[in-house]
């Protein structure tokens, strides 16, 4: 995978991340556990 391809893949990933406002508390809790554990 070239740098360009990689950057495109990464861009696709981050643009796919969406959170609904009702889910924020739960999602933050999940994100916290994933980045700390």
């Amino acid at each position, binding site marked *: *995978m070239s740098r360009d391809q*990689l*950057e495109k*893949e*990464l861009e696709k*990933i*981050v643009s*796919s*991340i969406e*959170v609904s406002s009702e889910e*924020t*508390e*739960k*999602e*933050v*809790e*999940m*994100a*916290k*556990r*994933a*980045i*700390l*554990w």
Partner: protein
Amino acid sequence: MQNSILRGCFFIFLKPNKKTHKKLDSFITSPENSSVIIISINDLTFYRFKCFEKLCHLLIKNIPKEKSLPIIKKYDKYIGSTFPSLFGKKAYGNSSVGESIVSAVVRRISRESHHYALFIDKAARFMIEIIKEITNNKRIKLYLILNDFSNWDRPSLRIVNRFNALNKNYPVTWIAFSNEIEYKLLAHYPKLYERLRFVRREFLDRFIKIQPKVTESFCNLQGQISIMEKHPVKKPLFEKKLAASKMKDAAEELAFQNYERVYVILEPLFRNSKIDKELQAQVYRLVALTDASRGDYAQAYRLLSIAYGMTKLATYKAHIKYLQGLIQTKRYYDLKAAEKDYETGLRCLGKKSNRDRQSLLENAWLLNGQALVRSLRAKNLSKKDASKELEKALTLEIQAFNIAKGKVGADFAYLRYNLLANITFLLEITKQYNNAIKFWTKSFEQYLISKDSSFEIAYYTRLGLLKFKEGLVKSSIEELNKALKSSVSIHDSFYQERVLYSIAFIELNEKKFNESLSHFKKGLEITRDLQEMSSFYMHLCGALWNAAYLNDNRLFWDTVSLGLKLVVNEHHKTLLNSLKKSAKDKNLINLLKNNDMEIPLPSPKLPSYIPSIDLEGTPSQDINRYLLSENKKSLG
């Protein structure tokens, strides 16, 4: 012997008999200046913090309300909701946090204890303040007699341990009677009896070893014992109803490292042939995860194999193989065996075109496992081959993310965040710091809106350290200062000192000596208060290098003396002593270099457990540090 009963002493009476008590009476040399509190625990339920709560109720009764109320008010925000009866509150219901814990805990073979290390620390400080009042500010000696010590729940014992580490002022002597667990309480559960006996002994041995001035086996003393009267068991140990909800309860106890309670909850379901095989396979999985958390990896692996044989569900088989692969990778460092487990897991899932929601979830986790194996394998390859291997690892993570993309549910959300964090880590390993910064920010900054301070600490610390690697020093310190501010706002001293260390390290690297010195000094103060002596030593080394760069002899030798007075690790003491012996070398920088006094790089991640508080073991290698290091040596 009488004089040896001092503050902090911990007496463990193994197999007490009727001869012990008179001798015990004679220890209490001046009854008029002593207060004796006896606490008995008559069951083997191991409810989380039950024993601590009971002890605190007894302690609080011994001081007037006008003294106890201000202490209760002060600690309410830290520990009040866990002890509603102690703090005069209503009991809490379930929260979304519980759900997130369960989703996470069944995917891991290691523990996360930081979230309640803070709690244990505060609970111990609460107890110190109560005891300060009971002892009338050191005028009265307090004897705390713990009957049935072997029945104490593990989380409560962690508070007792923390209390002893922090209490430097008030005269408290602990006297504990430790019987073997009584067989009659568990007559219907002989296997549980054996397991608890083993697990208790293992933990209590570890606990006893680190208590101040422990004296064991007083069983041959003369005298009578009246306080050891036995109480009948008031209620049956287990509820008859067997329900899947027990699994959730057990997973929550596992998240709090309350291992005995996990075994107690699960035992009625464990090895019970009347129970549905699929449910039983899940029970085996949870018991295995508990064993793995305790460090018994062989037993964990074996139970997972049994669960694998029991279940008929392809997705569950794949999940079990993922966990076995994790044990092989992270604990046995056997990459070939891990790869085999992951491949078996993927084969269980069958054709790619037929995968349902659960299959896709397991599929993505297995790819994530394979990515870690490749990242570790890259460490032993030539530069060119390593680069190819890391690229494959990154491709696997991206593939896994694409599978998980857009799927609803806590299980998929937890997976996605893991993958995002792992992709960032791979970008860091491959030194693509700018990409890592961008990816991290775009992945996680949206959650800053929640203003969750503990999330902010993790987010800004990671970002700050990535920016430092990219050479964005000013911005890096700004991010770390945000993390510092958040840690102060929630009184999280454990993370505060880690963040301070990172800031000080960067400032020292940038030759901002006055700033770095002030941060190392603050770190020394906090780690001393926390009694976190391995971190204390890291700040101490930082302060020594700082003094050396400033060529400040007085500061240098004062810091060495402080270290010699406080460090407990023998190797650290030896290093400091060897500095002292070479004092004739006037070049302080050479002195540090010649004596191997290094300042370790800040860890890329904040620690997920605090061993001095949870009293559990640590893996022999920190895989995160290893992956980022230039070290070519194999793991293990």
